[in-house]
């Protein structure tokens, strides 16, 4: 039998049930393990202390993007937030801000899904041949490199939780969706720039971004959505003046 005294870490976890008037914080004591991340602690709480705690998770390795939460006020993937970084605690875990909360740490993703779909984040061909699996669309490594960074998004939505514009404008399309729009606009196989144009350039699109840049700072995949949006602004501005000054160069 071990006589060593176990180090405990205090967790303050946001709790909310649909039939509650107000959310609350519940405190749990979790044993400290050097190799544990916040997600391990949440799993420990659910398995051994309180089975009613609700949260999303899947891969445990920063790929699925489902375990995002506010950890001590910062948007983090809980599978990548080591307890050792937050000692001695307490560690406060809350759902991602700027989203409706369904229950405990689970947020409502419906609004994001609609925004994502609105930018048509898939390859569009003018000939409509995207479902023709026999076609080949060749691309050089440098053409691939032009958008590769923006294609790394895992839709974890930490960027939305870090964005003050998303906080004050529910209509703002937001960092991840706009970065993905830019990703497809830069893809040489894609011909859907015109189809995405109105959504990207509308008031709730790229021009609502005030370049706070925190979306890029919190992105676990180094996508740099802020960079993608500013580059889209640059393209949009050049396109505007081209249409104004050289309308004959614009395809109808």
């Amino acid at each position, binding site marked *: 039998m071990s006589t060593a005294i176990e180090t405990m870490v205090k967790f303050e976890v946001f709790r*909310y049930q*649909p*039939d509650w008037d107000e*959310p609350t914080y519940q405190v749990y004591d979790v044993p400290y393990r050097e190799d544990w991340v916040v997600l391990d602690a949440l799993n420990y709480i659910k398995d051994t202390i309180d089975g009613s705690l609700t949260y999303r998770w899947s891969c445990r390795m920063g790929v699925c993007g489902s375990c995002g939460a506010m950890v001590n*006020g*910062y948007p983090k993937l809980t599978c990548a937030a080591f307890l050792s970084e937050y000692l001695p605690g307490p560690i406060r875990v*809350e*759902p991602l*801000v*700027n*989203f*409706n*909360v*369904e*229950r405990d740490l689970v947020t*409502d993703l419906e609004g994001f899904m609609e925004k994502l779909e609105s930018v048509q984040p898939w390859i569009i061909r003018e000939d409509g041949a995207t479902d023709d699996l026999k076609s080949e669309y060749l691309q*050089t*490594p*440098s*053409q691939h*490199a*032009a958008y590769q960074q923006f294609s790394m998004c895992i839709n974890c939505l930490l960027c939305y939780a870090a964005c*003050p514009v998303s*906080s*004050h404008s529910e209509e703002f399309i937001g960092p991840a969706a706009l970065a993905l729009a830019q990703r497809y606009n830069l893809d040489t196989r894609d011909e859907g720039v015109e189809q995405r144009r109105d959504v990207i350039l509308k008031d709730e699109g790229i021009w609502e971004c*005030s*370049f*706070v*840049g*925190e979306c*890029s*700072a919190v992105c676990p995949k180094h996508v*740099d959505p*802020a*960079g993608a949006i*500013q*580059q889209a*602004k*640059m393209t949009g501005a050049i396109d505007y003046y081209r249409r104004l000054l050289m309308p004959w160069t614009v395809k109808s």
Partner: protein
Amino acid sequence: MDGEVLTQPTFRSLGWTWWTRRPSYLLVFLRETSSVFIAVQVVLVLVLLHKAGQPAADYQAYLDFLWNPGMVVFHVVSIAFALLHTYTWFNLMPQTVAIRIRGRRIPGLLLVAPQFGGWAVVTGLIIAWVWWVGAG
């Protein structure tokens, strides 16, 4: 009960004091706020140009107004904001402009350094011109 909607989502946002939440937010807030001071400064300069075409007494009265302690403090704060805006804006350029040569993005320094260099040259020329006018 069948069909009953159980979810009553609670919206949580960063709130209107979002800029106090972390230093990086505060820096952006100051960068954007600087525009107000710079805009006022531009108006003051335009009025100065207008007054230069008015009778000498009007022009002198405006100069006296610009030299009152409140306006001096305003200009000191404005120049601090202008420097902050310029410094942060130049440093953001590599995120905004993606120039590729042979498939590789050029280093950010190649975008930032010419801007600071150009700024230094223009500042030097203005100082030299003011000195030359003053000496003449």
